[in-house]
């Protein structure tokens, strides 16, 4: 499926992002590690406020410093992005690492035509003649599924629907033929039918361009459609990481299990996760999820976030119950057994 090349495209170690605010230091991302391999799609999933967007924006240092402070190392194709100066960083941004955002409406300049904006993105990175830039922009618009691209080149953003604007944003992201595409909730503002179209497009483009993708979402339905590997984040920490099949079939962390139960599914009455995210100015001791966790015991609320325990190849979880000396069946039951009765289809499949 992925990763024939052992050297990851993106390797993040000990990434912490904090903000100075009036109420003291706000810790948005609190020491996370992850890597993205060639051609692979990694999904970061979690509720609003769990730090997933800040984590991805810290990769290309889109966070304004100050008030933000980014610590840790981010190695991209072997280079540490944290040591680059502004000029070097600009060459990476948009060219080798491209971003698409949740709300295409706000990401575009409504005073310029859509074609002009794609051409601008092209000429920032490459010194191409005007006519060629135009031809390439039209090609890209065509590639992302904008019908009659050459006629729509001179149209303005308000003349496009939400789904088409997101397609234009994707076209803009592709101008530099990036190695890594960071997509931050690209389908959340869209209708379900358009969401399905955009996910399909991203999947196709990834194959065509051989890109890696770092995909941020709160919707596990989307994760199931697109991910190879999944990182579950909560309150700035990684709770669990695993391949996409493991996450859905054997969610180990109580938080992952709770997220699974939130998927609206016919016939099951779910009530969401009681409580809300901890205060980022003053996170609780021990496991960050403990105050909302139905299995929490006293040991969950002391010390720091538990070390990640490897359950399997490529599947690890940060939960007290999986450490030696604790009974992991306490938390396992909530997820694995109930899930397999939830949807009948997933049990027998053994491919890959």
């Amino acid at each position, binding site marked *: 499926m992925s990763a024939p090349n052992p050297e990851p495209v993106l390797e993040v170690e000990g990434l912490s992002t904090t903000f100075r605010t009036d109420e003291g230091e706000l810790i948005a991302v609190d020491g996370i590690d992850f890597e993205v391999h060639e051609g692979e799609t990694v999904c970061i999933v979690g*509720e609003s406020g769990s730090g997933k967007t800040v984590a991805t924006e810290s990769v290309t240092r889109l966070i304004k410093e100050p008030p933000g402070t980014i610590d840790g190392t981010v190695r991209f194709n072997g280079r540490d992005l944290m040591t680059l100066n502004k000029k070097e960083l600009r060459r990476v941004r948009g060219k080798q690492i491209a971003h698409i955002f949740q709300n295409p409406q706000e990401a575009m300049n409504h005073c310029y035509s859509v074609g002009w904006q794609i051409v601008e993105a092209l000429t920032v990175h490459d010194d191409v003649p005007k006519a060629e830039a135009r031809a390439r922009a039209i090609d890209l618009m065509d590639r992302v599924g904008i019908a009659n691209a050459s006629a729509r080149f001179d149209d303005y953003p308000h003349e496009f629907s939400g789904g088409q604007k997101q397609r234009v944003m994707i076209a803009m992201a592709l101008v530099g033929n990036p190695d890594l595409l960071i997509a931050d909730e690209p389908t959340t503002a869209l209708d379900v039918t358009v969401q*399905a179209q955009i996910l399909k497009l991203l999947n196709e483009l990834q194959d065509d361009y051989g890109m890696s993708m770092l995909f941020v979402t*709160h919707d596990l339905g989307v994760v199931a*459609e697109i991910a190879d590997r999944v990182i579950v984040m909560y309150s700035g920490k990684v709770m669990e990481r695993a391949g996409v099949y493991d996450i*859905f079939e054997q969610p180990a962390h109580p938080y992952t299990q709770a997220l699974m139960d939130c998927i*609206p599914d016919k016939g099951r009455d779910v*009530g969401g996760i009681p409580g809300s995210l901890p205060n980022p100015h003053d996170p609780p001791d021990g496991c960050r999820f403990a105050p909302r966790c139905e299995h929490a015991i006293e040991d969950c609320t002391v010390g720091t976030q538990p070390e990640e325990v490897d359950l399997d190849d490529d599947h690890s979880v940060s939960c007290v119950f999986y450490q030696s000396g604790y009974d992991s069946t306490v938390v396992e039951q909530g997820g694995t057994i109930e899930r397999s009765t939830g949807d009948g289809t997933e049990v027998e499949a053994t491919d890959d």
Partner: protein
Amino acid sequence: MTEPILSVRDLKKHYPLKAGLLNRQVGAAKAVDGISFDIYPGETLGLVGESGCGKSTAATSIMHLEEPTAGEVIFNGGGRAGTSRNEDGTHPNDVTRFNKTELKSFRRDAQMIFQDPASSFNPRMPVGDAVAELLLVHGMSDRHRRRVIVEDLLERVGLSATDYDRYPHEFSGGQKQRIALARALVLNPDFIVADEPVSALDVSIKAEVLKLINDLQEEFGLSMLFISHDMSVIAKVCDRVAVMYLGEIVEIGDTDTIFESPQHPYSEALLSAIPTPDPRNRSQGIELTGEVPDPSNPPSGCRFHTRCHRVIQPEEFDLGAEEWRNVLHLRDQVAIDALELDSIRENALADRDKEETEIPDSVIKSQIRDEFDVPETLTDPALDETLGEALDYLVDEDVETATKTLKETFQTPCETEVPEHVDHGDGHRSACLRNGSEHERVELAADD
């Protein structure tokens, strides 16, 4: 049978399109174009469809926030039950004919919740006052009683009485939506319209708010019109569903029935667009291409035929379903002259040797077929001949004749006949030609 709390009959809302110096009306955007349904006491009806199909306009027209163009909205809640029509055929409970006093009392008995809780509160007013304002407007002058009622209500929607004096920015999106619910409930209405109340929320919060809506509905005995684009949300709260496309209701029935056996292809497509939480079973759904067409110039016949995956072939045709759809798509694109012959030529030229300057027509023709995924030869030789002819005209830059040739041969009943609603029993109706007896044979052929 009990009396419905709300009956909508042939409701229309057209927005005039004006142009020119004299600002004459040149057409109309038919946002809602004749919808009818009933909501019974204690029931939740879901109104589902993509953006731009007129769901929200339907809601605002029903609530009389906008003047509907035509039709009746009969509201029998709030002690209006048991009336019969006047002698002139009008109904005394018709909201569209209410005068100012009647409207004010209607707006006590019917409430609305909006999609974005952040923009529906005054940022400079404590949320408790925002809720209590409704009581004041409707005549409760005792400040202390207002406060008691609102504090009690805040607790019932899962917040605390002390939240009364806090401001909107101190609450998260989910909490704001709870306050919006409290505001909708404070006048003890019989009927609530909820316009995408959970679309702006996170999954976990979404589940919480949906559960709260269900609980409150039971507790207060509410009837509800619930608008959403997401079938999975509809499944959670609705007893019945009305599927809307381009201003019309294409299917209506019990939620269970529609989920198990959708009769309209559009309902089928919407259902298959729900992302399944199963990574082993990826994107096998029906893909709905393109977007909702322009409501000022809707397609003829069945409005969905331009995007339908089950579009009907004439009886004498025998093409594959996919093949047939692609030919129709090619026909429509030729008709609006959207084919870029020059760029097709350039592409063909780029693929071939540099020395060649002329591209044989046959290459261009196969390029066109390729672009629309139409096979080199259609399975029906006679039809293939016609298609070839049309492409000849096209290559000769005679778009008009090409269009005419294609239009004469390739025609689907879906674009000429307007489908009638067919009753499937138990109030389950749908408007698709495939459901009429005449086209049943074709339906079987298209199914395999």
